[in-house]
């Protein structure tokens, strides 16, 4: 059985009000944008591997969201699930159109590390580089699970809502991904 989604992240009444208002008020859309920008940007950064493409695609995601918001219906899913689906489609089209797979822009990712400690450094830089390369080689859905789980901190239930899968399916997919990464990591060491 699926766990209920924690309140405050998905069924936030304040957000629901904001969404209704944003359908006709651009300023309210601006507030929604500020709430979700960093999450969508992080997702796109890890999917594309660099800031320039992440910026372009983030812009496309929010433009699409802005244009299509009047048609948005609350189906009990978090608003972010809708944005992630747009982001997923945008990035899938980007890969299809460009036919490219870029290596993760590791330097920039390291420079922006949360702890801000450049000295956690050479050794961890190599570790990050290797791990990000492994993640980037995963199939799309596995990448999504790993990014949503670790970079965004979502639970299996929340990832399930975003991907349109059951919590159990996400749990199993996550476990398989973890084992795959672990095995690949051991062969690189």
């Amino acid at each position, binding site marked *: 059985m699926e766990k209920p989604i924690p309140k405050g992240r998905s069924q936030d009444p304040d957000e629901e009000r904001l969404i209704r208002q944003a359908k006709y008020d651009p300023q309210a859309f601006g507030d929604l*944008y*500020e709430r979700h920008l960093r999450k969508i940007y992080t997702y796109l950064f890890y999917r594309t591997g660099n800031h320039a493409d992440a910026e372009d695609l983030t812009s496309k995601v929010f433009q699409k969201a802005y*244009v*299509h918001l009047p048609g948005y219906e609350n189906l009990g899913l978090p608003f972010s699930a809708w944005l992630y689906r747009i982001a997923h489609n945008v990035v899938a089209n980007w890969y299809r159109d460009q036919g490219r797979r870029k290596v993760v822009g590791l330097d920039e*990712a390291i420079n*922006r590390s949360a702890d801000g400690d450049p000295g956690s450094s050479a050794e961890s830089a190599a570790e990050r580089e290797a791990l990000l390369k492994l993640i980037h080689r995963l199939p799309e859905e596995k990448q999504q699970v790993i990014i949503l789980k670790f970079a965004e901190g979502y639970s299996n239930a929340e990832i399930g809502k975003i991907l349109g899968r059951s919590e159990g399916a996400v749990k199993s997919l996550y476990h398989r991904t973890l084992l795959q990464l672990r095995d690949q990591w051991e062969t690189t060491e």
Partner: protein
Amino acid sequence: MTTERSMESRLRRVLIPIAPRKGYAAILKRKLLAHTRMPVELEKTTRSAEIATLTTLGLGAVATVAAVATIGGMIAGLAGSGALLLGAAKRGVPRSGVKAQTA
């Protein structure tokens, strides 16, 4: 030996939230809010109208090229006939041509 747990903690260390570059958030917000939202239906209608216009222009262009080619062909035909007649006249061949020569 890497355990699943150590792999998880490695992922947690590496996959950190990423902030956009400085100034990007504000620039994109201004750009979004400056954009006049067109209702989806209207947008579809406009797109259909654009497609219709482009199709008309395309068909028009094809028709023009065809007409020019036809006229060009006619002119070339006339010029060719003229040249033959002129050549024949210079050689003193009567206008009735080969038949007249063999007769």
